[in-house]
């Protein structure tokens, strides 16, 4: 029985999905969302205990590989990100009438898939986790069925997602064929053994398929074209979930596959990742400049962030990986917050065009302030969290020396470029006057739950930005522990 205690968070989240379905039948949507949030928070407390951040309420499971799973602080950290993102999205949706129990059930199923990816130690369970999260998010994207844009986005996402899954599975099947095992942690353990061929051309073929497949998931250029369409068409809370949760899951899967023993088998991948990093961040930032739709702009900024994070895969030292994780964490928090603000201002009649944000600060000063903090943090303005994460990531690249410094330079230049389109919105909100006829102050109930989630996210962004040393130390600790096999 105690052997199953390690799955307590996942089981709690599954239970919350089933309860949400039950409350959907009973037609009490607030209760469905509330119970899902409470059970997620319980799971969060348990994982915080296991990850050594707070005292643990359940005894610590033995870390390391157990059959299909691999328990590490690394995985727990990602689980914490997933739960924070999901809870923020669920809190926001409590304010909107169109989300019922099925929404919460599906988002909890997606969260289960992400949690499974985070602790997976085997190709089979990794793919199943990716699929569980994938299938649930395809439906969530088309959740507003009256909106043609939403259904179109769902169809696009479904087709792209299927292609991405099949590419990933094909790549992993080649990896399995060459190494003879599906267990990724066993592969790590046996990295030095002679039965695993080094520099085998088939390995590179497999890795190309895996990079392409997961590249679709993380919206890496040149596989990024779907992201703006999908994020624009999906309902804003779901866009938040996709940009912050689904993308983080893709990175987790890449970390599991590529930061394990892979570089030992195929050392030439570093250059490839460096190339993709520069390509992705430049594409994302340049295309973001000319966007007129706020959700498309945030989508392109998300692509640019994927480029920054890819630096960690290229440099592959504990400091750079810690920086990459920190960047993933901060990107998830900032992006989920930004999309939630977009969802909330739509309640007040503000459209999706960026010119609709003109003069927002005069009527909704709190929302405008939060949005400004999130955007400036995304741009990497000190003393916010986005600056700190980029700082650690780029100093990781600089510390590694050699041509990796080029990656840091590209990252800094791109951050400067991105400041233009983030600061433009801040200018619209604070300096420009509202266009006449816009911002009809509809008499509606205050979106109090959204305010709570925005407040918590802003507090995290500012607090970590001002006092980052504990969290940086923790990330470096995790990264060096995870990469101990070398």
């Amino acid at each position, binding site marked *: 029985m105690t052997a199953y205690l390690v799955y307590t968070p996942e089981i709690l989240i599954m239970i919350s999905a089933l309860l949400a379905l039950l409350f959907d039948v009973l037609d009490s949507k607030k209760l469905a969302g509330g119970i899902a949030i409470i059970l997620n928070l319980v799971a969060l407390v348990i994982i915080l205990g296991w990850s050594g951040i707070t005292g643990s309420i359940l005894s610590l499971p033995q870390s390391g590989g157990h*059959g299909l799973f691999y328990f590490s602080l690394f995985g727990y950290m990602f689980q914490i990100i997933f739960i924070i993102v999901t809870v923020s999205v669920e809190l926001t949706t409590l304010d909107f009438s169109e989300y019922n129990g099925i929404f919460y059930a599906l988002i909890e199923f997606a969260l289960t898939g992400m949690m499974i990816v985070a602790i997976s130690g085997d190709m089979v369970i990794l793919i199943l986790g990716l699929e*569980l999260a994938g299938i649930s998010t395809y439906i969530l994207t088309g959740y507003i069925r009256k909106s043609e844009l939403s259904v179109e986005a769902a169809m696009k996402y479904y087709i792209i997602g299927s292609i991405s899954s099949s590419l990933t599975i094909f790549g992993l099947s080649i990896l399995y064929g060459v190494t*003879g095992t599906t267990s990724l942690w066993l592969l790590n353990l046996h990295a030095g053994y002679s039965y695993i061929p080094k520099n085998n051309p088939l390995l590179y073929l497999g890795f190309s398929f895996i990079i392409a497949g997961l590249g679709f998931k993380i919206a890496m250029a040149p596989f990024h074209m779907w992201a703006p369409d999908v994020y624009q068409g999906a309902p804003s809370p779901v866009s938040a979930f996709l940009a912050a949760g689904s993308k983080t899951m893709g990175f987790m899967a890449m970390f599991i596959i590529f930061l394990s023993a892979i570089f030992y088998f195929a050392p030439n991948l570093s250059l490839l990742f460096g190339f993709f990093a520069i390509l992705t961040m430049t594409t994302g930032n340049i295309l973001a400049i000319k966007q007129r739709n706020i959700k498309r702009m945030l989508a392109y900024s998300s692509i640019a962030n994927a480029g920054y994070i890819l630096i960690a895969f290229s440099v592959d030292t504990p400091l750079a990986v810690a920086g990459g994780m920190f960047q993933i964490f901060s990107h998830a928090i900032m992006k989920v917050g930004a999309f939630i603000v977009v969802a909330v201002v739509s309640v007040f009649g503000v459209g999706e065009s960026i010119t609709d944000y003109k003069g927002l600060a005069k009527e909704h000063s709190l929302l405008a302030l939060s949005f400004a903090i999130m955007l400036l943090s995304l741009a990497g303005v000190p003393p916010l969290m986005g600056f700190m994460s980029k700082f650690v990531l780029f100093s990781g690249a600089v510390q590694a020396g050699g041509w990796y410094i080029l990656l840091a330079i590209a990252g800094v230049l791109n951050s400067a470029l991105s400041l233009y389109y983030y600061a433009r919105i801040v200018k619209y909100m604070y300096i420009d006057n509202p266009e006449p006829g816009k911002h009809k102050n509809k008499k509606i109930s205050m979106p109090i739950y959204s305010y709570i989630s925005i407040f918590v996210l802003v507090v995290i962004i500012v607090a970590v930005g001002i006092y980052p040393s504990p969290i940086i130390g923790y990330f470096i600790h995790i990264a060096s522990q995870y990469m101990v096999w070398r």
Partner: protein
Amino acid sequence: MFLTVILLALSFLAIIFAIGMLYSREIVHAVIYIAGLFIILGLIYFMLDNTFLGAVQILIYGGAVTVLLMFGVMLTKREIMDKKESITTEYEYVVLIALTISIYIGTLFTVSSYPLSIYYMSMYTLSTVLFNSFIGAFVVMGVIIMSSIIGAIYMVKEVE
């Protein structure tokens, strides 16, 4: 001798079905040809004494994949289906893809370090593996199917 003749006959039949699939003018006919091809391949596996692979081939390819293709045909617009043309028109691509796949499979066989240990895989071993070391994957599979059923029901429900 007798078995060799049957094997050769089956192989010949498989080629006929494959060509028939390429040249048929109706999508439904092509699907029927490909279903026949899958079943003949399954029979060949049976003849080569790999009953497990044969059963999988007939059940998954002859059954599931064919049904999937049929669904695809069913959900496609009538005008596309009514076009009385051969489905495949760009033969140079077909030849290219066939060559690539042949080279790929050929490489798999020639790479000597490839641990394709052919051991006897029985249904008994399969169930042991499935319900012991891979039980977690089995459970997650159930969750995936449940979530897709819930999603499908939601998506096809009438919009009120």
